[in-house]
């Protein structure tokens, strides 16, 4: 698969972040962003069910902008608020961001600091997957990451507002829709990244490690375990 290698080479060209690229990233992710809305509504509804005031739920969505960790803290939202516990829980659920960022580092390190931080401030699973695919096809505009993140921010905050103000409505259905959309999107991105037999060992390692860890570790950590195990398997296979 020598053809694919050219894509990587192109990725080493000067990376920039432009308004045009940001817009392109935003438009590209619209189908995913639409499905963020019901998930936002579900979060707003869940927050109101835990007696979190609407303005706090909306503030959280607008500034934290990391769905899984926001759901995770709802169970801790009791007076007096356990700030330390809150920090540890958010760190556990969001630690995967560290790995996502590290993966995009060869790309993002070519940007000036302010633009790099701006693009990273909206990093999430979906626009990471989008950026990975873009990087692979030789995209040199990191606006894809920023645009994808911004395009999902609006429905997330708007959905939270709707859900928080209208109480518990859509529960299971919206969550299901989100799960299927995300799972199919990630599966499609993975399919595009498949480069043949040499990917088998790291991918299988990631799958097995994440499955085992999902049964042993606290929620969130299985993603870290699977990612690190797969990465190590890839690095080991590289020397062969």
């Amino acid at each position, binding site marked *: 698969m020598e053809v694919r290698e050219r894509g990587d080479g192109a990725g080493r060209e000067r990376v920039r972040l432009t308004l045009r690229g940001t817009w392109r990233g935003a438009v590209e992710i619209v189908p995913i962003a639409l499905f963020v809305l019901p998930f936002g509504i579900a979060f707003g509804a869940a927050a109101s069910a835990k007696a979190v005031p609407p303005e706090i739920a909306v503030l959280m969505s607008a500034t934290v902008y990391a769905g899984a960790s926001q759901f995770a803290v709802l169970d801790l939202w009791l007076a007096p608020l356990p700030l330390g516990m809150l920090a540890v829980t958010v760190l556990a659920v969001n630690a995967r961001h560290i790995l996502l960022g590290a993966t995009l580092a060869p790309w993002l390190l070519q940007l000036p600091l302010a633009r790099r931080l701006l693009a990273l401030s909206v990093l999430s699973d979906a626009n990471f997957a989008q950026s990975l695919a873009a990087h692979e096809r030789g995209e040199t505009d990191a606006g894809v990451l920023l645009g994808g993140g911004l395009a999902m921010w609006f429905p997330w905050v708007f959905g939270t507002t709707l859900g928080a103000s209208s109480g518990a409505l859509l529960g299971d259905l919206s969550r299901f829709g989100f799960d299927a959309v995300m799972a199919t999107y990630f599966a499609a*991105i993975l399919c595009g990244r498949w480069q043949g037999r040499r*990917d088998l060992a790291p991918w299988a390692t990631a799958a097995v490690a994440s499955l085992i860890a999902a049964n042993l570790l606290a929620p969130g950590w299985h993603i870290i375990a699977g990612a690190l195990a797969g990465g190590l398997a890839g690095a080991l296979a590289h020397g062969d």
Partner: protein
Amino acid sequence: MVTETSAVAGVLVMVLVTFATRVAGVWVMSHFPITPRLEAFLKAMGSSVLIAIIVPATVSGAPRLWLAVGAAVLVMATTRSALAAMIVGTAAAGLARSIGG
């Protein structure tokens, strides 16, 4: 009842921790030379993160989720369009649900 002040403090803690996780990966990598082996690690990790997110969720999920992922892989393999794969996969899951799958 959580007071407004402590709620805002709680959100602030969440913001700081989350932002730190978002920028930490690139920051750490800026302190190591990115060797070919490290690049192979990062590349494998990119796919592995996605695998670690969807595999446990799909395995422990309903059969219609397996159907959705299977359909998406099939469509992606034939059309190379992530959008088409996503739409067909999600539609398959919706259909399976409506007929009681």
